[in-house]
């Protein structure tokens, strides 16, 4: 993709790397410091935060309903982050997901869409939200892959434009959902687990399979690791890049739908700054910001670390300012750790 990517990753990816071959050298060299060790580190961090929660808030923290509260909070950002994981693994970045979430939530709750949904089926709203997400993602993808616009700029433009379009459609008003079937669907909690959490789980599992068990996933890793090598290996890099942004858009659409289900209201203010939360979760999870390595499990853990932290801080009546500082420290710590792992694996090859 970008030149810096090529330069930084050319060193540790052989030029003839077929998609599956990109990973082994690193995994072998890092040994215990591979994906499993990284995830273990995240699990330890998560457990540590939980221990702090139990010590400081006791039963109020260690409670099933509190766990579900954390998961419900995590699910919207979680779905966004899964999409973001693919884009970042593919060597890109998407700053527009928060705005696209807002746009999807607004578009799916306009009077026209709601009327149509009442006349036919509430799924119309879901289809609308997802279509909006994919559409915005495709625009991003085409601009970046075929228009050669730098991802940062193209998605920054989409971020601003999608928010503006959402405001225009909603006329800057909050659109309340009046489709009872839609609301009751999101109120359901099969097997005691809220619908939002189910959706997050399904998206996460689908994302894991797609990244780790399909050609699409291997191509994503190859494109992010070394776009030129991937092209030489026969991957249609441009088309694949376009797909990645469409996928992030799809995730943003689903997240917008979930936001709509959670708040029962579409608003152009939905999802502000969520792109940054998603990027933070992805990076903390162990996906390389320069591309070429991605982990869905890490992303899920990253999201859970941040939301559990938020929960613990609220339980203890602590300020959000202190929480932001802790968040910043976690991001820096995680990236420093990743660099150390990266150095070791490079030294090993």
């Amino acid at each position, binding site marked *: 993709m970008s030149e810096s990517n090529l330069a930084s990753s050319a060193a540790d990816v052989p030029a003839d790397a077929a998609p599956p071959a990109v990973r082994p050298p690193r995994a072998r060299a890092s040994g215990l410091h591979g994906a499993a060790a990284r995830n273990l580190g995240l699990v330890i961090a998560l457990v540590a935060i939980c221990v702090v929660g139990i010590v400081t808030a006791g039963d*109020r923290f260690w*409670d099933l*309903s*509190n766990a579900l*509260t*954390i998961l*419900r*909070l995590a699910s*919207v*950002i979680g779905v966004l982050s899964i999409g973001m994981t693919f884009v970042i693994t593919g060597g890109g970045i998407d700053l527009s997901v928060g705005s696209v979430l807002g746009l999807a939530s607004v578009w799916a709750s306009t009077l026209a869409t709601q009327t149509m949904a009442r006349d036919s089926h509430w799924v119309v709203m879901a289809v609308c939200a997802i279509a909006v997400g994919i559409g915005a993602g495709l625009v991003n993808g085409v601009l970046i892959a075929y228009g050669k616009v730098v991802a940062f700029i193209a998605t920054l433009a989409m971020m601003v434009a999608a928010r503006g379009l959402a*405001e225009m459609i*909603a006329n*800057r*008003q*909050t659109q*309340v959902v009046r489709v009872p079937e839609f*609301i009751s669907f999101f109120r359901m909690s099969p097997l005691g687990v809220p619908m939002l959490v189910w959706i997050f789980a399904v998206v996460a599992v689908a994302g894991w399979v797609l990244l780790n068990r399909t050609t699409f996933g291997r191509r994503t890793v190859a494109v992010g690791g070394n776009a030129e090598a991937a092209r030489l290996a026969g991957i249609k890099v441009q088309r694949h890049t376009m797909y990645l942004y469409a996928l992030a858009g799809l995730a943003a659409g689903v997240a917008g739908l979930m*936001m709509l289900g*959670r*708040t*029962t*209201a579409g*608003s*152009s*203010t*939905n999802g*502000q*700054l969520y792109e940054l939360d998603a990027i933070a979760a992805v990076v903390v999870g162990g996906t390389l910001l320069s591309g070429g390595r991605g982990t869905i499990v890490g992303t899920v853990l990253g999201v859970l670390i941040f*939301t559990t932290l*938020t*929960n613990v*801080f*609220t*339980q203890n*009546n*602590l*300020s*959000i*300012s202190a*929480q932001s500082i802790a968040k910043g420290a976690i991001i820096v710590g995680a990236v420093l750790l990743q660099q150390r792992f990266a150095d070791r694996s490079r030294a090993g090859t």
Partner: protein
Amino acid sequence: MSARPRRRWVAAAGAVAAASLLVAGCTSNEPQETEETATQEAPQAPSGGNDEQGDEVVIGFSAPASDHGWMGSITKSAQDVAAEYPDIDLRVAEGTNDVNLQISQIEQFINDGVDAIVLLPFDGAALTEVAIKAMQAGIVVVNVDREFDDPTAARTTVLGDNYGMGISAGRFICDQLGGTPDAKVAEIAGIDSLPLTQDRSKGFADALGECGLKVSNRVAADFTVQGGEAAAANLLQAAPELDAIWNHDDDQGVGVLAAIEAANRDEFFMVGGAGSKNVMEAIKADDTVLKATVIYPSTQAADGIKLARLLVQGKSMSDLVEVEVPRTVQLYAPVVTKENVDQYLPTAFES
């Protein structure tokens, strides 16, 4: 000889008397002491009645991020009022503009089983669902400032008067400009997407209409200093000649004034909104274009806390005949000018 035992008697009696006095003194002192400490802890509670200490009330409080002075004062005045009552245990979830996070804060309060929730939602419609859930869990929900879209989502609602603010500002401008039919009146609104902004603008337009005026230029900012500065700078460019400006919010007013000074304009007068301390001081000093402001009380969440306490303790508002706390309490939006500014300065907020 006989004098000796008598002296003993006297000494013994004296000792007993002294001891009993001491004991009596101790015992009688104790309630006095508690009375003293009780009144010390609640200096705002002179008249007894509703302010007398009752059962402990756990109140969860959530409001948007304190990104401007008015909102900062909302949380601060709520905490101040709670501190005056030893029977209130206030849990403050720090402010956020993310409805997803605010919903989860309310869910946490429900899990904790608080007695009451005082909620100033970032978006009333988005928080309605979780407020209903809280009400169904038997928690008293007091809605502040931004209304839910379902009346069953809150037991009591405390509201400012946004429409009334517009009316007050509009009538004041009418009074000042009554004689000039073609007067140019500009409006600098707050966040346009909020219903409160729409209400203010509607009230303003209605009041101006009463004296045959209308808004000639309208821009919207975002309640922040930088937003106010940018919006006002554009407005002043677009309107070379003005007679009056109504600025919805005194926080963004700091930026609005900066833009006015930068443009070197003083052919008009300006009316503020909300009632910040520095605006009131400027009105008092009377050395800027600011001549008045209309109040939107930043103490409404504090009122919400007081009402939540009454509701949980089963008390009513003692100045009303009604035996229950009312469903809605709407506050008034008076105009503050140089003449009456001293009356309102104590409750003004720092921006």
